[in-house]
């Protein structure tokens, strides 16, 4: 059971009026985002075939990885407050993303990709090489930057423009995380504009 029934929850939690104004939504996205399962289901076949579900599932895989990376960082004992609190907050954001993506995939008739065991993420992310807080922050920053570029990179592939818009908003969250982590590492901002997605 997901905490968030639909993607509009992200807007609500962030304290903003939803960007997902009803006047501009496609029928499928409107049904999906407002939780009208029957109408969403009627579009599910076409959406699934379009490949949007596959893209969302890859995104979900990245969110699973991000959540587990923060778990590995927290369990390492290498993070001290207030950095630990920030990591927990960022992990909570990724859980929101996960729940929203999984709910959307189900409503579009797909099967959300399963989370792997923590040990598998530890192996693929080489968690045994983390020796201090900076190592953990470097890993988190690398994953946040990668997720940013991944979300930006798949935008042109979405058949449903409203799903692309949601992916762009997820990318913005990742940029926010990366910027904070980069600053905590004492690194400068990227030189020039448009450093992401290139």
């Amino acid at each position: 059971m997901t905490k968030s029934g639909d993607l509009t929850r992200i807007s609500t939690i962030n304290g903003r009026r939803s960007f997902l104004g009803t006047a501009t939504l496609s029928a499928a996205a409107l049904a999906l985002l407002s939780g009208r399962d029957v109408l969403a289901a009627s579009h599910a076949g076409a959406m699934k075939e379009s490949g949007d579900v596959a893209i969302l599932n890859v995104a979900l895989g990245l969110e699973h990885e991000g959540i587990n990376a923060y778990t590995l960082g927290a369990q390492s004992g290498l993070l001290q407050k207030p950095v630990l609190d920030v990591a927990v907050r960022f992990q909570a954001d990724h859980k929101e993303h996960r729940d929203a993506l999984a709910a959307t995939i189900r409503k579009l008739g797909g099967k959300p990709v399963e989370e792997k065991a923590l040990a598998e993420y530890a192996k693929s992310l080489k968690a045994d090489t983390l020796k201090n807080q900076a190592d953990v922050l470097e890993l988190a920053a690398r994953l946040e930057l990668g997720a940013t570029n991944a979300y930006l990179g798949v935008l042109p592939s979405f058949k449903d423009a409203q799903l692309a818009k949601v992916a762009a908003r997820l990318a913005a969250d990742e940029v926010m995380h990366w910027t904070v982590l980069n600053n905590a590492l004492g690194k400068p901002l990227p030189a020039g504009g448009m450093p992401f997605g290139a």
Partner: protein
Amino acid sequence: MQAFSVQAADAVRGKQLYESRCGACHSIDENRAGPAHKGVFGRKAGMAKGFEYSPAVKASKVVWNAKTLDRWLADPEKLIPGQKMGFSVSDAADRADLIEFLRTYNARP
């Protein structure tokens, strides 16, 4: 004599592109959201050990080389309809550098 030159693919730049564009889902040695790339040159599509591919890629007859990787990166869905990678690389020079990096890496002992 033609007034153009063909710029050689740059594996060093390819490594940077790999890390910035591919690194969210892929690594050389480990399966992540996408399959590991170690040994990709000469390998049939859908054969990275332990990775759960789409049925389309598993059924494909594609063998990875510079030409097929270029077509894949330019438009994965065009090369293997039904695959699940939504990411593409539109710039031919970027694709060439990425492929050169993968080729160079795979040539290592």
